[in-house]
């Protein structure tokens, strides 16, 4: 059930993208989402799609994974695209019925929005498929560091983030186990009307909360026993390294931006 989710999974490898610094990847992904809105004609979309495809090929991850990443969102995408197509006016009118109309502008807009969604999902899937979650949380900690000036608890937030990421699979396993145990006791999940469905969730949620509380307590005790006293004066085991390839990737993104600016209409 939950196994169908691709987003947030990491696939080990040693490609160019895998070896990149997680900070570079994180910044680049956010930057990509920003500049994709600069594209506004065929040429720019072609350029940005080619760039994305190149990045995907560079990661040596099977294209199937990316397509699977799009799948859960396909209805949302199609809904948005349909809205664009039917409610945008302008240019040649192909079909009209009341407030609904299919026009030249509407069609192109619809296609552009579709490309935009798919490319953003591809890029964020690329980030999570090639970066271990812990490295991502390291990158976030590094990038949030400037916020210390305004007394933002950077260490605490990143600690929570890495613990949360670490326990996602564990909690998923636990959910599966409790679900099976309750099904064996005659609970039908996802059957009956809404009220019945909600009631069926109680025997799953309560044990899950209880076990989370217990786990938190045990983890806190174990951390204290190992001398954890907070963020002050800690050294780092995993140190992030910036390599030439990261600079190269950033240059790639700058060139892409320049290309977009030139091709924009």
């Amino acid at each position, binding site marked *: 059930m939950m196994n*169908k989710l691709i987003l947030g999974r990491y696939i080990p490898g040693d490609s160019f993208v895998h070896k990149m610094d997680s900070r570079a990847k994180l910044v680049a992904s956010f930057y990509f989402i920003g500049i994709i809105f600069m594209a506004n004609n065929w040429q720019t979309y072609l350029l940005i799609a080619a760039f994305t495809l190149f990045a995907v090929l560079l990661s040596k991850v099977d294209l199937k994974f990316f397509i*699977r990443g799009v799948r859960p969102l396909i209805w949302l995408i199609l809904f948005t695209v349909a809205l664009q197509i039917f409610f945008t006016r302008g240019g040649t009118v192909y079909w009209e019925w009341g407030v609904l109309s299919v026009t030249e502008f509407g069609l192109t807009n619809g296609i552009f929005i579709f490309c935009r969604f798919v490319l953003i999902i591809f890029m964020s899937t690329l980030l999570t498929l090639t970066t271990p979650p812990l490295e991502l949380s390291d990158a976030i900690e590094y990038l949030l560091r400037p916020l210390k000036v305004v007394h933002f608890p950077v260490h605490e937030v990143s600690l929570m983030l890495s613990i949360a990421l670490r326990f996602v699979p564990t909690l998923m396993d636990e959910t599966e186990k409790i679900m*099976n*145990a309750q099904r*064996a*006791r005659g609970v039908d999940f996802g059957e009956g009307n809404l009220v019945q469905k909600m009631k069926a969730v109680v025997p799953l949620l309560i*044990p899950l909360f209880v076990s989370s509380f217990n786990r938190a307590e045990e983890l806190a005790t174990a951390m204290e026993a190992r001398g954890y006293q907070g963020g002050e004066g800690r050294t780092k085991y995993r140190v992030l390294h910036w390599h030439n390839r990261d600079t190269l990737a950033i240059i790639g993104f700058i060139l892409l931006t320049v290309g977009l600016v030139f091709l924009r209409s």
Partner: protein
Amino acid sequence: MDIRFEKVDFTYQPNTPFEQRALFDINLTIKEGSYTALVGHTGSGKSTLLQHLNALVKPTSGMVEIGDRKIVPETDNKNLKPIRKKVGIVFQFPEAQLFEETVAKDIAFGPKNFGVSEEESRKLAEKMLQQVGLDESYLERSPFELSGGQMRRVAIAGVLAMEPEILVLDEPTAGLDPQGRKEMMEMFLELHEKAGITIVLVTHLMDDVANYADYVYVLEKGQVVKGGAPKEIFQELNWLKEKQLGVPTATEFAERLVAKGVSFGTLPLTADELADKLVSLSGGSAHDE
């Protein structure tokens, strides 16, 4: 009610990049009234197989026959409740499944799901609590204020309250103290002998297999590599060690005596058997001297 596996294959997340095969061509039968043990190294597919026993998962190919119901890949998920009522599963660390406000309500939860009346299920709860060795004073307490061992008992009572014909136990004594372990295993044996409940035990403890089971299946890498009475299985110590499985303590000890020149004929499995054989042997050897 027998459970029969016929050429059962099972794959996790089929047709995805994360596809993983867990069971290969499983053929086995759990006979009515038997005490069957499933042993195997960690990751050998025991727990996956166990979920087939009451149709929590369906085979990817092949067929599981539970009583007169046939579960094939195409079986739809409705009307499986009658199976679940007949086959009760006590999962590993079952205390994690408790959720009601009181012990009584939690034990009665299973029966109520299967349509037993409020009053009746309350009576069942009282009876089952006694069965697992806790007194009535626990009925109105919250399950979360009990000790780990008591929680385990309540959880097991919750499964027993469904009055299953087949009881599946996935390492029921893991993490219990020796006294609790013994009490619990004796209780299951009593249920097996007196109430005639078929028991399927998944365990790593070969002593339990030797003491209680009358049939053993050995699993390795998702396949059944051997099946037979414990007496036969535990004769081949080297084969078992090769498969990284343990040997009953008594058998291990007997093996050492064999190395010192004692001959047993067949190796004993339990301490009692070992003692008997040693007594008869010492009688025999007195003649020689």
